């Protein structure tokens, strides 16, 4: 009897420990993301900003992994359940790639074949003027 309670207590301790460990990971990842966000404000080069954004996206996926695997307990479920949840989510790989590529391609095509549109989007507006009239559509 005392043996089983000791076992249960050890299990309880390890679970609580894991919860606080994951909390620390999530907090650290968030702080790194915020630090990168602040640092990015001072960067002027587009490619540098793009790289920092990529790093932030990777950190975001790491955070998502920790939440799903440990807080939602998916890591400790049976393999069948893990696969039935994770495999359909791989659709997102195609989904994100295809749509972002499509958006970018649309921008490039329009800039190439619609010079008027491109000229319009490069006109600078002064701050006071823009608060007077709000444009309602693209």
């Amino acid at each position, binding site marked *: 009897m005392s043996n089983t309670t000791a076992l249960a207590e050890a299990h309880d301790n390890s679970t609580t420990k894991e919860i606080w460990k994951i909390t620390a990971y999530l907090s650290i990842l968030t702080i790194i993301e915020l630090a990168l966000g602040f640092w990015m404000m001072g960067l002027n080069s587009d490619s540098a900003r793009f790289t920092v954004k990529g790093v932030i996206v990777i950190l975001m996926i790491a955070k998502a992994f920790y939440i799903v695997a440990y807080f939602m307990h998916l890591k400790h479920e049976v393999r069948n359940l893990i696969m039935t949840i994770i495999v359909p989510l791989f659709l997102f790989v195609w989904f994100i790639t295809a749509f972002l590529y*499509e958006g970018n391609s649309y921008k490039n095509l329009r800039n190439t074949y619609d010079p008027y549109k491109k000229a319009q989007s490069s006109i600078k507006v002064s701050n006071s003027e823009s608060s007077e009239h709000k444009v309602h559509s693209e």
Partner: protein
Amino acid sequence: MAVISTTLPSEKLWTGGKSPFNVEYGKLMMWYFLMSDAFTFGAFLISYGTIRFSSNGWPDPNEVFRSFPLAPEGIHAPLVFVSIMTFILIISSVTMVLAVHEGHKMNKSGVVNNLILTIIGGIAFLSCQAWEWSHLYSEGAWWGSNPFLNADGSQSSTNFTNYFFTITGFHGFHVLSGVVINIVMLIMTLLDKFEQRGHYLMIEKAGLYWHFVDLVWVFVFTCFYLI
């Protein structure tokens, strides 16, 4: 060898008589619901990304989300308020895990305390969001109206505010329903419903939903405020 492999637990799961996923029906259905909800949010965020990639200019989030409650009007404090909101949601997710954990131990008072903390966290997050929305509204931002210029100083379209209010609104509505679900769980715990059933599995399902809300915020926060 074949005989040995059929005695493995993973093989036994498919011999019938019980769930091959080794979870209760309700929990499995909660997972499938969350997966479909993930596709809904995914579609929103990808549509936002597509429009952003197809635009020549986009407002700078550090200019738009620069204010803080009770601070003077002209303050420039980007990312500060939203990081507080993010930490509130992470901490409320932690108290939810602790509530589920106390439920495993059949510790009613532990479940009640942690559920109350989770509900407070959820309400705090909603209050922050309500302040942010009303502040942006007072600046002239709403569906169909965008007072902010693009980062390069050119005139912006209303895509930015439309997506911002739709997606954070949809997420905020999830937080609201999560808070309501947690309040129902709290009342059921206080009425000893789970003690009578002999298990706190219902708290686990509410917990899954609550963590999902936190998970979505991780993506919304990154897509709108950081990058």
